[in-house]
């Protein structure tokens, strides 16, 4: 809680600086009577002081918190006795460091505590304490220094408003650039880990291999020690579940959009549309629970009555429920594009004697087709990236099968399974999750870009 106290203290300093800034500006200009000689409103001088007090100090604090851990760890590693470090792999050194940290913070330690480790832990704790003290001192000094700098700079001619406003503008630019930073962060983090994975396992094996069993060896001489990382079964599993979902969602979503926009009365539409859209707001974990505990047993019993062997975690159950989840997605997108088709097209069709369904099938749908296709592509990318339903209702076994009653596994399920166990960060198993994540990101991104460009192109046509 140390850091929170410091942040609160910093806020207090900022508030103080704000008040003093206003006071200072009024004093410098010669009292309230002369206030119209100030360049800006007094509050801007206050804000100017508060910003000088807060921003540099907060930046320093952020940097400190971000790099303190790295820095101390490096220092402690450098001072570890050489005989402890010699002939150890990077992973084992990490383990030792973990023990040291746990010992320093009073957690449970995995190995026996040797004097060397105890000494290192003591040093770690000492460094940490020192760092925290220095951090408080430096941050508060910087805040007070900033405030006094503002105090010294404050004079009636200073263009406080312009300065404050340009700071706000810069902050807004930074905020809006966060989107790019995020994308960059995703790409870089996933890419780097994936590249490290592909150093261990060739991309050819990953993308074309048909055997997925990501075991890692406990001993170096173990049989089958490398594990198999052929992701084809995952891709086919993902495709199968998504396909089942689409088979459910596309007809139902499309037909209900057509009915609600072309046939239904105003009251029916006002009542049915929001209720169907409730399906979009239900958390996916709820769907997963529904799929695993309600739909899957029903399907298994149905299969048993007609003599079919259905796996308890079948692709069908996950796909069906995912389809239900996607219905509102397709129906509201299709609804939008159908409503965007100009009434003149329909009127022309009616004038030629077409029935309403003929108009819909032969005029409205073809006119809206690009938008509908775009919507379906977006829905496919949704289905591919969906996680909770398949984690809860589809299986873990990487079967290469075309039977929807079998258990399959998907890319997202494997990412979750690989990353939720306890394992070291650098093993091929963990890195494989990032390679899968990269594949997922690239595929869904491509689908989205394609879909959005189709939708946009279409929208322009009728405007």
């Amino acid at each position: 809680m140390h850091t929170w106290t410091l942040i609160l203290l910093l806020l207090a300093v900022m508030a103080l600086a704000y008040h003093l800034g206003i006071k200072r500006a009024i004093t410098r200009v010669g009292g309230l009577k002369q206030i119209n000689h100030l360049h800006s409103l007094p509050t801007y001088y206050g804000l100017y002081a508060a910003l000088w007090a807060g921003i540099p100090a907060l930046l320093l604090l952020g940097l400190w918190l971000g790099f303190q851990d790295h820095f101390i760890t490096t220092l402690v590693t450098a001072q570890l006795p050489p005989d402890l470090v010699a002939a150890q792999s990077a992973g084992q050194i990490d383990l030792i460091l973990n023990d040291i940290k746990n010992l320093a913070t009073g957690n449970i330690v995995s190995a026996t505590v040797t004097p060397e480790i105890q000494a290192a832990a003591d040093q770690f704790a000492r460094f940490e304490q020192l760092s925290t003290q220095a951090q408080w001192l430096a941050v508060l000094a910087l805040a007070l220094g900033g405030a006094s700098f503002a105090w010294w700079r404050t004079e009636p001619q200073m263009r406080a408003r312009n300065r404050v406003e340009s700071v706000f503008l810069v902050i807004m630019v930074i905020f809006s650039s966060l989107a790019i930073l995020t994308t960059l962060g995703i790409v870089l983090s996933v890419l780097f880990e994936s590249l490290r994975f592909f150093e261990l396992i060739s991309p050819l094996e990953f993308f074309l291999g048909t055997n997925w069993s990501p075991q890692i060896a406990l001993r170096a001489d173990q049989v089958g020690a490398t594990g198999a990382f052929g992701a084809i079964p995952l891709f086919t599993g993902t495709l199968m579940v998504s396909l089942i979902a689409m088979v459910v969602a596309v007809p139902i979503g499309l037909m209900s959009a057509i009915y609600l926009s072309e046939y239904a009365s105003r009251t029916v539409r006002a009542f049915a549309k929001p209720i169907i859209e409730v399906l979009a707001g239900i958390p996916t974990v709820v769907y997963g629970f529904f799929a695993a505990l309600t739909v899957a047993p029903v399907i298994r019993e149905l299969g048993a009555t007609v003599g079919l062997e259905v796996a308890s975690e079948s692709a069908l159950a996950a796909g069906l429920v995912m389809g239900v989840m996607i219905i509102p997605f397709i129906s509201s997108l299709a609804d939008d594009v159908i409503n965007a088709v100009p009434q003149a097209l329909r009127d022309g069709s009616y004038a030629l004697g077409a029935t309403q369904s003929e108009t819909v099938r032969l005029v409205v749908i073809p006119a809206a087709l690009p938008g509908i296709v775009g919507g379906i592509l977006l829905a496919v990318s949704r289905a591919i990236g969906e996680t909770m339903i398949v984690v809860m209702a589809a299986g873990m076994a990487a079967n290469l099968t075309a039977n929807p009653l079998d258990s399959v596994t998907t890319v997202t399920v494997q990412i979750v399974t690989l990353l939720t166990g306890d394992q070291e960060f650098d093993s091929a198993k963990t890195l494989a999750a990032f390679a899968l994540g990269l594949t997922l990101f690239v595929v869904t991104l491509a689908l989205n870009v394609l879909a959005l460009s189709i939708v946009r192109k279409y929208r322009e046509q009728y405007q």
Partner: protein
Amino acid sequence: MNNINNIPSTSPAASDVPRRTIDIVNASLKRRYARERRFRRLGAFAVALGLSFVVLLFSDIVSKGYTAFAQTYIQLPLNLSAEVIDPSGSREPATLAAANYTKLIRDALRQQFPDLTERQALRRLYALVSVGAGDLVREQVVAEPALIGTTTELWVLADDDIDMLVKGNIDRTAAPEDRRVSDETIGWVTQLEQQGRVAKRFNTIFLTHGTSREPELAGIAGALMGSFYTLLLTLLLSFPIGVGAALYLEEFAPKNRWTDLIEVNINNLAAVPSIVFGLLGLAVFIGFFGIPRSTPLVAALVMTIMTLPTIIIASRVALKSVPPSIREAALGVGASALQTQFHHVLPLALPGMLTGAIIGMARALGESAPLLMIGMIAFIVDIPSGFTDSATVLPVQIFLWADSPERAFVERTSAAIIVLLAFLFLMNLAAVLLRRKFERRW
């Protein structure tokens, strides 16, 4: 000229009279109208199917979960003798807390069934009450020390199997090997029921306790607090950032490559699978910056990045709906560009932005996939009390309970889902009301 309507007849058996278009049309009308009706019915069927899915989902969850809000208790005359609880007579909380209340409950149970002497049978008898029943009695005694030395009828928490039995989720007539409860136990429970010693009472444990391996002791308070801290921090981070970004992009940004790039990015981020944000959180926030796992802090950072596109898009729509005349009037009386935005445009756009923020928060409340990556699936009993305590959140708690084999957890999972859906409903309602109240037509 006279054969304009003369279309070659399709069948040679047709009459020699040349057929006119109107006849062909008339002949096909019946088929076409039937088709029309079919199409229409198909549409109505699709809508009905969609609606029935909603009904099915809700009724399934509610019918499975509503029973979890009641919990079975067994009334036992507990001899709270002073010698056992507080031999020194000091009534100090520490002494009271250290006493063996489980033994008192076991004594009371044995009194109810005096014929039982065999050790195995006694052990099965003791299994009627929860392993945590002693702790609950202790809480009662510590809160009310006057009970010591008396024999009081107290309601003691029953085991989850007994709870299921009383609620009828275990079929008493099924073959003994098919159910988790033996005939002997059913006999005891029936006897207690006949004495009026078994009752279902409102399940406060579910709402006030953290999770537990024992279904009857498991509650959602820990997960709720975790969700609360996560959402609070997410809102504090994502709302200012989202509004700032929207203001810049909508009102200040020059039309150039950089802002185009930002826009494309925001639209794409809104469609990135949520699990990828989990990977980002794991690699960057935990791996690089060393933020502790399983904390609301790291969860909130991931959620902020995830909800930001939603909030930015909604805020931009809200800003667009403020008419330009407001800006022009403000600029006309000498306000600076930023003053115009902060003093005039922003207050008018705020309700729309808040609506977007609430919807974004509702999404974040229901999201669980990225949180699995950043360690929120740890088994945490304690109720978190800050942003850096280990915690889990409600949807992840649901995921964890859904994996548990005990029948009683199915009920509790459904109940947790009901609570989650209730919160989502309230948030969406707030968004709708906010929109109704402040929506302006210019």
